[in-house]
């Protein structure tokens, strides 16, 4: 089983990376590089926060609402805490939430999409109905409702965001599967006596996998925004954990006096989501034309 997985995965991930590297000099490729660069920088900031941040993010280090400059590059907030330090520490929250929530959505959305698309019929319609009803809900509203019920904490918030995104993975994968399963190579696999699980895992999954990185980056960008939104609304993490969204909610009423305490956290949310969107859009351009090109080639041969 382990060997099976490793073989499937190396060839699959390798192929996707290969496709990307082949086009890394195009505009789409450059977008992806920029996006990845920014995200990695923020990741390094988050990991090295204890060494980089000049002050403790949770203690009063100076008088409140000092303008940017001097020892405090981004000024201090209402509580006299260093804004820069809070931003550096605060980058851990969105990244953690991205990691947890996308993992949950993918872990549920991908298999559901594969099974539903392959099985078709009543089961497909049943799962579709459930997924569509979730999807029909405005994402943030749904996340608010879930967060309000299950309470605060990184895991809880991630879960709330994950639920919102399961239908997206499901939809994209399921639709892709319904078209791939018509391919003669899938039929051939069935005719060769392959068990159903093997047909899905070895013949369908590798051919729908190019959708995953694209949804992943869009999902990640959205997760950052949703988390910030929840924090602004007071449904975020408990106080004491530095968080960009929480800082905005804390300081925005004093925007006319100390704009920096609201502006910089907002700016970083913008940078991170933009970077993730760059990755998503760029990958979309690179990986999906691959699909189109292959169809074109098959058509030309016929």
């Amino acid at each position, binding site marked *: 089983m382990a060997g099976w997985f490793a073989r499937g995965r190396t060839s699959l991930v390798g192929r996707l990376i290969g496709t990307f590297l082949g086009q890394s000099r195009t505009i789409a490729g450059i977008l992806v590089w920029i996006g990845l660069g920014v995200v990695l920088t923020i990741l390094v900031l988050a990991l090295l926060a204890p060494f980089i941040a000049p002050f403790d993010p949770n203690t009063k280090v100076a008088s409140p609402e000092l303008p940017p400059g001097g020892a405090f590059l981004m000024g201090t907030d209402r509580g006299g805490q260093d804004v820069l330090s809070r931003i550096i520490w605060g980058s851990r929250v969105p990244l953690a939430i991205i990691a947890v929530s996308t993992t949950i959505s993918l872990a549920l959305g991908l298999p559901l999409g594969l099974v539903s698309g392959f099985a078709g019929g009543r089961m497909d319609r049943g799962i579709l109905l459930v997924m569509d009803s979730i999807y029909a809900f405005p994402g943030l509203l749904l996340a608010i409702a879930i967060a309000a019920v299950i309470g605060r904490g990184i895991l809880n918030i991630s879960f709330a965001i994950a639920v919102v995104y399961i239908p997206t993975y499901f939809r994209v994968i399921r639709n892709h599967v319904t078209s791939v399963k018509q391919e003669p*190579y899938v039929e051939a696999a069935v005719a060769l*006596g392959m068990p159903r699980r093997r047909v899905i895992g070895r013949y369908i999954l590798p051919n729908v996998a190019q959708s995953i990185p694209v949804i992943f980056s869009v999902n990640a960008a959205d997760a950052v925004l949703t988390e910030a939104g929840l924090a602004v609304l007071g449904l975020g993490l408990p106080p004491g954990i530095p968080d960009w969204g929480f800082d905005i909610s804390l300081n925005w009423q004093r925007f006319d006096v100390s704009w920096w305490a609201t502006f910089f956290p907002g700016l970083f949310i913008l940078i991170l989501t933009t970077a993730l969107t760059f990755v998503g859009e760029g990958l979309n351009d690179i990986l999906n034309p691959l699909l189109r090109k292959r169809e074109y080639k098959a058509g030309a041969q016929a």
Partner: protein
Amino acid sequence: MTEPLLEVRDLKVYFPVFSGFVQRLLGGGDARVHAVDGVTFSIAEGEVFGLVGESGCGKSTIAKTLVGLVRATSGRLLFRGEDVTRPDPKTLFRLRERIQLIYQDAHAALSPAMTVGEAIADVLRTHGLPGPSGNRVQTKSEDAIREAVYRTFDDVGLRPPAFYYNKYPDELSGGQKQRVVAARVLALRPQLIVADEPVAMLDMSVRARMLEFLMELKAKYHLTYLFITHDLATAKFMCDRIGIMYLGRIVEMGRASTIYADPKHPYTKALLEAIPIPDPERKTKKILPRGEVPNAVWPPAGCRFHPRCPAVLASCGWEGRDVIALLEERWLSPELAEREALAGPVKEWEADGLIARRQMGKTDPGPVYDLIRRILLESGGPMAGAVRKVSIEGTVVVVEFRPPDLLVPKEAEGRVVECLLY
């Protein structure tokens, strides 16, 4: 006589036509595509049996039914005397080791995300390695599997095997891919190979080589082929016996040499006439069928070929919609369309089985009645001979046909033919 390897008896495969909910309420829900509609044939061990026909005649559906991809609506399939019409999963799994498919499009039949070596290794992981006495030996040893894949590659002429093992289908030529597909099938050591247009997508230059290759495999592995093609020239080269299919039925079946020398069914004749002969001086009139293959949802009554048949008789199955087709064809000429405008437009006519009718409403049906009689007389031919009566029923003009004569396959000069001429 020995038992045939495969026997197909009165096989019927219908596919439901998916219609909307409202349509189903209105009673249109029982529409079915009559893909295969009563086909009977058998294949002896070691034989090459060809199914020849235009696209859409049901030959690929038969192929899919044989490997259990499509379920038979009725009829029976016997493999070595064992009923495999509706096999349980275990029987089906074993059956698929004995009957295998070679596809038309080798490129599409291989997953683009899998190396061709893996494609075959995967089959061996599922079914085990072929054992010495026709049994199969399950193995977990990846080395043994790789060895077996190499041997199979070597058998089909992909040398050196190690070079091909890690290639993706994208990196191989059409002929090489067809060999990979053959290797994948041979890894199962099947007894019957259903080859569904195996060379149709190959270049002319590799086609002959590929056919020879299939014959080499046949000799080496004692295979039996069901060879499906639309190309009579290929069939002539390959097949011992052939069955000519038209719209879900076999219209003529017998030894290939007999049929090629002297075709009996008008459709077979037309197909043979259509083979191009590379001789610019040759000027013979070709008798080709008119029009197009009819819709298999509502196949024509009587002989399915009758609307297109150059030798059609009055008893072949004329029915209401043939009148409408006649009007349509006739009014392609502007003069006729103008002169006979009274009976038109075509969409006012409605066919119902043996009857064609036109609702006249408040208009006097008399002139249309006269006109349609004249048209039928003028166009003459077997269709006019099949008309029972033209009449006026209230405000409706009705053309009614006699039911067709019973059509059964008959023995005629060394072959089975399904035509009223014999």
